[in-house]
């Protein structure tokens, strides 16, 4: 016992592997948040008037509400006035090829294993790479535009497609939704916008890599995906962040709108800097992700692999409004060392014959805390709604914690709701069995953990699944027995 816990500790206590900073000159404003800050951001981004008004409305609402503390998380108070709310790589002229891109930036991408050059050549994946706050390079835009697909930075969308932004921004996550989403609405930097027209099946996975890069700068990404009738899109979001010694606030908002017969698959690999072994530094990740199945027979599927951040507060949710609509949530959340995660989902059944599936796999190692929090709400009139939830927790060592907070609100008698939950410890017997076949303890843990997560990994697009498997192994390195 003691021996295996020791191995566990050794393996889980390894340091973050993607710790490096790149050196691009930033255009950063001094810390602090006032109406002036918001006007500055809006002006800097050359936004139309409606956007500024939206931001100011959100800011004024934000001032009236308080930071929520119901999650199973502990962290020092966030001083919102000490954060700098805008940072952008120096304004560049429009680029026609990669040759014009800052070589330092390209090197950063290469270190992350995201070579745009490779991506452009090998392809299948269009990348809207976000470095800090401003989109630097968007590929495959032309090919997509032939199909009428819009895939661009949020800032561009505000200027080029204001009618779509006006119609859908805030339609799923309104300004008044919560503290962090209100903050995001006030100060959001940039992000992605995606529109798939009627009947179009997006032929490639749309992918955005996010990255925090400027010391002391909060990241406020905003993403909006609108899938028109009968369309389909698979969207990938992935990120790794550089080593950092101070806490960074990250409050993103993602909204998805699926019209009749449309399907949106949204996959995330989140690997922000988790802080060091003692819990110093690391990203505070307060994310609001929500989709609405607006039309009949629509489907929204969230898949997430959460391995990073010091604090994760995140509940990708689906509002099942259309009849026969489907919502899915597949999650792997790994916490190690001093990391804390409170993550889960919210499935709100409004339409008839709506169906939701929740599969959550939590893995806790080190001294970390890993909580699943989920709500299944079945409204009156949502006849024959069905939900299946499965929440598993895997513990490594005896100093970590796993918690499950499932909430059910059933207001229709015809609903069928199932919930299963398990908690297990990674077995030393399993590890010894692997050892005896020539597989060392570290690899054995990778193997066992990947097996445990297989149901979720299978939901990821192929190229992402491979990356995610490696990430799981790396995240738990120095951890198990």
């Amino acid at each position, binding site marked *: *016992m003691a*021996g*295996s816990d020791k191995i566990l500790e050794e393996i889980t206590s390894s340091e973050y592997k993607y710790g490096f900073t790149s050196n691009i000159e930033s255009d950063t404003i001094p810390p602090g948040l006032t109406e002036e800050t918001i006007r500055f951001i809006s002006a800097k981004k050359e936004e139309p008037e409606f956007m500024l008004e939206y931001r100011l409305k959100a800011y004024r609402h934000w001032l009236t509400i308080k930071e929520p503390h119901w999650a199973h998380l502990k962290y020092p108070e966030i001083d919102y006035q000490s954060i700098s709310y805008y940072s952008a790589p120096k304004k560049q002229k429009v680029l026609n090829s990669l040759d014009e891109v800052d070589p330092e930036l390209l090197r950063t991408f290469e270190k992350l294993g995201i070579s745009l050059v490779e991506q452009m050549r090998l392809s299948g994946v269009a990348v809207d790479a976000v470095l800090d706050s401003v989109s630097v390079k968007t590929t495959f835009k032309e090919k997509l535009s032939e199909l009428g697909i819009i895939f661009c930075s949020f800032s561009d969308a505000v200027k080029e497609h204001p009618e779509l932004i006006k119609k859908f921004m805030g339609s799923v996550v309104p300004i008044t939704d919560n503290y962090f989403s209100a903050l995001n609405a006030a100060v959001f930097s940039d992000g992605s916008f995606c529109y798939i027209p009627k009947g179009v099946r997006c032929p490639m996975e749309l992918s955005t890599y996010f990255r925090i890069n400027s010391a002391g700068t909060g990241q406020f990404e905003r993403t909006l995906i609108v899938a028109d009738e009968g369309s389909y899109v698979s969207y990938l979001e992935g990120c790794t962040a550089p080593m950092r010694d101070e806490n960074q606030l990250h409050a993103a908002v993602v909204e998805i709108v699926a019209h009749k017969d449309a399907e949106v698959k949204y996959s995330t690999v989140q690997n922000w800097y988790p802080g060091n072994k003692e819990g110093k530094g690391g990203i505070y990740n307060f994310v609001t992700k929500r989709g609405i199945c607006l039309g009949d027979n629509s489907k929204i599927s969230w898949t997430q692999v959460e391995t990073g951040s010091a604090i994760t507060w995140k509940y990708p949710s689906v509002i099942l409004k259309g009849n026969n609509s489907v919502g899915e949530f597949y999650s792997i959340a790994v916490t190690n060392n001093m990391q804390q995660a409170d993550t889960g989902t919210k499935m709100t059944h409004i339409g008839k014959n709506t169906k939701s599936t929740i599969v959550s796999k939590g893995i806790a190692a080190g001294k970390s805390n890993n909580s699943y929090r989920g709500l299944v709400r079945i409204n009156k009139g949502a006849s024959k709604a069905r939900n299946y939830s499965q929440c598993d927790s895997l513990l490594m060592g005896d100093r970590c914690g796993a918690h499950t907070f499932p909430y059910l609100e059933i207001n229709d008698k015809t609903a069928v709701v199932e919930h299963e939950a398990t908690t297990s410890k990674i*077995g*030393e*017997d*399993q590890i*010894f*069995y*692997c*050892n*005896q*076949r*020539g*597989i*060392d*303890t570290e*690899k054995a843990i990778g*193997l*066992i953990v*990947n*097996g*445990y*997560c*297989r*149901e979720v990994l299978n939901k990821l697009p192929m190229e992402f699944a491979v990356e995610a498997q490696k990430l799981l192994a790396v995240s738990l390195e120095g951890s198990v027995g």
Partner: protein
Amino acid sequence: MLEIKNLKVSVEGKEILKGLNLKVNKGEVHAIMGPNGAGKSTLASVIAGKEDYEVTGGSILFNGKDILELSPDERAKEGVFLAFQYPIEIPGVSTINFLKTAVNEIRAHKGMGPMEAKEFLAMLKEKQKLVQIDTNLTGRSVNEGFSGGEKKRNEIFQMAMLNPQLAVLDETDSGLDIDALRIVAEGVNKLRSKENAFLVITHYQRLLEYIIPDFVHVLYNGQIVKSGTRELALELESKGYDWIKKEFSEIPA
């Protein structure tokens, strides 16, 4: 190949093996028999390197190397295989993926690169046939939901895949019906060669009707008290372990 000298092992302060000696050469099959609690499974576990067993004296040399210094995976890479009495389930990990990892780890230890997928599949098919294992089982997660017999058969299949120099079979016959027993034994017989050796640990003589041992040892009270050939197993079968217990009830520590 294997040389155990005066091995003393304690579990939670209690001495289980009390100065055990055993020598196994290439090409030989040794059977270890003994009553319950004699230390048979402890011997198997200590050879494989399971923790919780404290070696308080003696040595285990494998090809001249002291393997007590090696971690369990290093011993496996050196060519020691243990067929578990109670094989472990690993949910979500396919047997094929598990074995591919194991094969390539062992190859890496020998300075060889990973096996080509095509070559691996060919080997997989060949060995499946050799030990008559259902291809269905190898596609499933390691031992997950397997019956007792299927688990044992899977152990023999893994042994065939990893081709160890020394295979220790820890009560592989326990819980097997006669058909499964024969299939398992046939698998072992097909894998026997001049280059490898087997240590067959069993409570009953039955298995030894199918796997003919070169030597039979009786383990009692932490020591090997009698060694002989196949006839010794038959004698044990007819006289029962009480015979041994009577004869060796007083062993000086």
